[in-house]
């Protein structure tokens, strides 16, 4: 039928235009290429960490010394991962950590050391090992330091330097610092020391309390600004508010960016956070609740509205048929 042919032509050109300006153009815009012009494919590794990205980056930079250093570091991590950790022994090692991770909300070298209550549940095991071996290398921000022990947690490699100790403390965290995590806890432990979320009234100091007096409120605001100044001094700029981030960046960007910020934003000061799959899912849930709270409602309502219009269209078609029946 002629009308269907015309419809097919219209659909074809509309879809072609859509494909060109959306999937194709966005792929071209965000494509990363190495210095020979070859495309660098950025993909998620399911939130596990073995240094593949870091080594590939160093290779692309053509820095042989760096490649060796990265390879050696991640090989070390692998060695430790193979050791059997003893959680009971780990508890004593963990005492080293709570000197800084003390919940006192005091800035240390740029940020407030996060609460570790669920660190065994939300972080990847290999990443935790890497972190204790050398936080700057683990976060893939070693390029910022002439000496990586200058990282705010960098001194840890002198206090906990024995491989078995590392395996023990990681085993301890995975056993005792795990359990059910809420999205809010995961997000607070992993991101809040740097990022505010104004839609959930969260700042770098955590939840904003309700104040009776304007004076207290202003005093709190000043404390927040002071904290943000410290973070800014540490990171170079203030990490953006994450309220709408879940809609501003696609799923793919978020996943790969959290796994390895350098891959998406070469040279960025945001360190890798080292979340495992579960940790990421929780963080995503939190950010969705803040920035895209209608997602559930959309998915629920969608089929009904579309169903209604399918029904409407069928009725309209029958009406049209009856109206046009005796015209030809």
């Amino acid at each position, binding site marked *: 039928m002629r009308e269907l042919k015309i419809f097919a032509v219209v659909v074809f050109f509309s879809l072609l235009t859509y494909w060109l300006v959306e999937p194709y153009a966005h792929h*071209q*815009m965000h494509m990363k290429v190495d210095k020979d012009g070859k495309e660098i494919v950025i993909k998620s590794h399911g939130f596990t960490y073995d240094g593949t990205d870091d080594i590939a980056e160093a290779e692309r930079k053509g820095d042989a010394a760096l490649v060796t250093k990265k390879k050696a570091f991640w090989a070390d991590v692998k060695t430790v991962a193979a050791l059997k950790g003893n959680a009971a022994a780990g508890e004593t090692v963990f005492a080293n950590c709570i000197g800084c991770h003390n919940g006192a909300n005091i800035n240390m070298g740029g940020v407030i050391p996060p609460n570790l209550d669920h660190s065994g549940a939300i972080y990847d095991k290999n990443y935790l090992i890497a972190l204790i071996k050398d936080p700057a290398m683990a976060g893939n921000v070693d390029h910022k330091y002439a000496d990586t022990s200058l990282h705010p947690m960098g001194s840890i490699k002198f206090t906990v330097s024995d491989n078995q100790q590392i395996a023990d403390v990681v085993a301890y965290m995975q056993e005792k610092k795990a359990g059910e995590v809420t999205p809010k806890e995961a997000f607070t432990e992993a991101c809040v020391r740097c990022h505010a979320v104004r839609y959930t009234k969260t700042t770098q100091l955590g939840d904003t309390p309700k104040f009776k007096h304007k004076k207290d409120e202003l005093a709190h605001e000043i404390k927040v600004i002071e904290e943000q100044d410290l973070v800014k001094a540490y990171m170079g700029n203030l990490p*953006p508010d994450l309220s709408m*981030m879940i809609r501003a960046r696609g799923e793919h960007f978020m996943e790969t960016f959290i796994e390895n910020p350098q891959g998406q934003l070469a040279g960025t000061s945001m360190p890798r956070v080292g979340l495992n799959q579960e940790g990421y899912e929780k963080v995503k849930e939190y950010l969705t609740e803040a*920035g895209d709270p209608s997602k559930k409602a959309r998915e629920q309502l969608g089929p009904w509205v579309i169903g209604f219009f399918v029904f409407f269209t069928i009725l309209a078609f029958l009406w049209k048929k009856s109206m046009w029946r005796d015209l030809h």
Partner: protein
Amino acid sequence: MAHFEKANSLNEWMDQRIGLNTLKRVLNTEYWIPKDINFLWAMGMVLAATFGILVISGIFLLMYYKPDTNLAFDSVNYTIMAEVGYGWLWRHIHGIGASLVFLIIYIHMFTGIYYGSYKRGRELIWLSGMGLFVAFSAEAFSGYMLPWGQMSYWAGMVITNLFSGGSLEAYGLVEWIRGDYVPGDAYLTRFFMLHVFLIPLVIIGLIVLHFGTLRLPHVNNQEGAEIDFEEAADLWKAGKRKESKVIPFSPVFLSKDVFVMGVYFILFFYLVFYNFNFAMDPVNFDPADGLKTPAHIYPEWYFLWSYEILRPFSKDVGLIAFGIAQAALFFLPFIDRSPNVAPAHKRGLFKYWFWALIVIMIALTALGKLPPTDPLFATLGLIFAVAFLFMGPILFVITMFEKKIEKGA
């Protein structure tokens, strides 16, 4: 004082006072539409419906929107999207509507071009239609400023900069438009006024004009046949529905319009619920930041072809090319010299011209978004922009030599 009888029904009461029955006849039951038309002729009513949806959803958004650079972003993204019941639904409907209206406008325009519906008495339909196109463009642009996201800010910066006129360096004019050196509060509030008041008013006026210009020439038909509407209407009224070449707008044509609208709404709401990023650019969910230029600044998809006519040339040449491209569309009925009102596939070279135009417009649209840092895209952009500019003179020449089609009985 005129004489009024007691009315026996509400209908009669209304008829006595505002001639309801006459109105119904003139606008509906005796507004004659050729029988030989296809679903493309429903696009006008689809546009009218989409405009209605935009107005209604816009009113809901207006109840919570705050035109202030400090509040605008959160009033949209938090108050409307998170706090107000179904606020997100209205916003998605408004965003998708604003994008789809252009898809349908383009289909509607190309239909007019394909069937030669802008000639021989239908020039004013085309001109008022172009008026609508310009008004909708202004409406879309001003609306895009309101959420005060990164793209609002930077697209606003780039587009208002065009008014400096290249080497004329008329920065005074740019500042006058912005009300400031850079887009700021004065800029936002004036675009707010334009978006919610002045431009919609103009659009409503233009729609009335557009409908008015349709009344005497009537809409065209698939063969471009000249129809004696009075004769055909008499046949219809005499019950010879098969023999008559026309149908009344209501209810016969309307039943088809409504069916086409149904299909359109299925697509519309699929996009509202499941695929909205093309219409609500994720970059605009980053709040405006005058110190942080986004990596890629591009307009919404429906402006890309014009943007690409501007971009490949040097500043001044680009502006002139851009101006010519916009004006050329207005003059289409006068550039086309052919005596024929007929579908493109019956018009010899014009057929090729039409499909070339489609290809060029789509290519320009794609290239307007593709990064011009890639030399291949830059070259293609230049080629297609130049090709577009040549389409006017080519149309003039080929239609001058177009043979008159002798229409059989």
